[in-house]
Structures are given as structure tokens and as C-alpha cells.
């Protein structure tokens, strides 16, 4: 499946989630798994919009969502500032609400919901790849 191209804006999150759900549903993922995939894709796209393209209003996000055997592979590419999820600290989930830093849960959710999350950056842009096996 070719890349889908989206303006890097929050109003396109709906469409991004819908694309992922369509591929997952067609390939027999459970509704629970589909929600997880939509959430991981939403978080990945939100990070690109918020961090990679911070202060940039005309950024573009490219997404592909394909099957590789029994696994779904979601790839997102951008040309913004590199934002490597591996460099984000784990949130302290045991801290009380009043002690917690607000936010910082998106990367945690991506890692928790997907089997693999990898990130590569080069002169041609940043590529985030997430996979999850069908149960």
C-alpha cells in the first residue's frame, strides 16, 4: 500500500486512526487490538505534529500501514526535528496525580501497545516503525 500523505495537523488524527482501523479490520484484528493500533498511531502522529514540526504550520506526515505475515506494520515519516521515542523517560505511574508531571504518557502507550517500536533518522527524514502481531 502506498504512503498516505497528511498535513501534520491535529485535525487529521481522525483520518489517520481510520486508515489504520481499516487495514486492521480487513486483516482480522480484534476490536480490542484495533483500538490499540489506533491509539499507537494517534500517539505517533501527535508526537510528529507536536514535537517534530513544533512551530511549523505546513509540515507533512507520511503514513503507510501494511501487513507483513501476521503482523501489521505502521510506518510514519516526517521531515521535522528528530524526536526519538527511545529518548523519552518512562513516566512514574505510581506517583500520585498531584505529584505527576502532566503529559508524557504517549510514548509509554506506544511502547506498551505495540510489539516493536523503532526509530531511524537520516538526511532524508525521520522514520518511526511500529509492529503488532495478530493474536
Amino acid at each position, binding site marked *: 500500500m502506498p504512503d498516505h500523505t497528511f498535513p501534520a495537523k*491535529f*485535525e487529521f*488524527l*481522525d483520518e489517520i*486512526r481510520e486508515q489504520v482501523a481499516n487495514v486492521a479490520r480487513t486483516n482480522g484484528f480484534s*476490536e*480490542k487490538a484495533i*483500538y490499540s493500533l*489506533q*491509539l499507537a498511531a*494517534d*500517539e505517533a502522529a*501527535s508526537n510528529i*505534529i*507536536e514535537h517534530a514540526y513544533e512551530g511549523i504550520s505546513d509540515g507533512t506526515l507520511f503514513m503507510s500501514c501494511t501487513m507483513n505475515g501476521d503482523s501489521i506494520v505502521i510506518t510514519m515519516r516526517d521531515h521535522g526535528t528528530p524526536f526519538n521515542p527511545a529518548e523519552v523517560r518512562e*513516566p512514574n*505511574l*505510581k506517583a*500520585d*496525580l*498531584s*505529584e*505527576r*508531571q*502532566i*503529559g*508524557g*504518557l*504517549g510514548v*509509554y*502507550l506506544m511502547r*506498551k501497545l505495540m510489539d516493536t517500536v523503532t526509530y531511524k533518522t537520516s538526511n532524508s527524514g525521520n522514520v518511526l516503525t511500529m509492529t503488532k502481531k495478530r493474536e
Partner: protein
Amino acid sequence: MDITITNEQENISILHLSGALDGQTYRELVTAAQGVLTGGAKNILIDMSELTFISSAGLVALHVTALISRGEAMPNLDQGWTALKSVGTSREGGMQKHVKLLNPRKEIVDVLEMVGFSLFFEIFTDKDKALKSFS
């Protein structure tokens, strides 16, 4: 996302959320919560019966709603994400007394549990019981 507000008892506002609470819409929840608190409500019941999706941005909105409902300074939403993350925190911990949740779907409960928010937000499936719990 759509939010409708009903005031069924003195000091309690119910915010009925419909659609997706994500990076595009999370400010709407904070704005609605600010509005009812400014209008005199002391307690907020968030009706999630029609909420289809929540991301980490939605969790930020819940977090901020909990903090401002117990008297922390309201953030200036024109300053965006940074303002939300800088809301002061008090030492009052544990289950939130002034913000509770009604009827989230299973996938949303799973997300709340995954990030530990089920320790802070009481979840009800019966509206009358939820309303009584504020007294």
C-alpha cells in the same frame, strides 16, 4: 467531539462527551470544565457513554480538569500545551473527590488502567450512584 452540559443537582455539572478526546479536542474538555467551575459548580461528572476514543492528550485534559476542580489556577489556553503542563499541583492526593467518570467503554477503561488513572478517577456505571457519591 461534542460536549453537552447538564446541571442536574446543585454544585454538580455533568459533561457529556461524544466522539474522540484527542490532540484536536482535548482543550474543549478543559474549557468546558473551566466554564462550569467558574459558573459555581464544585463537582464534575464526565459522562463517557458516547466517547469513542481517548489518547494521551485526553488524559492530559482529565489530569488538568482534576487539578483545577480542586482550586488550582486555571491555565491560559491561548498559551497551549505549555500552559496546561504548568498548572500548579497541590498535595491533595488519592481518588479525586470532585471529578468522576461515568460509563467509559471497555477500551477506554483499559487505557485509564494502563496509565494508572483508575487509581485517581472513580468510575461509575450508574448515574444516580455517581451523583450521590459527591455528597
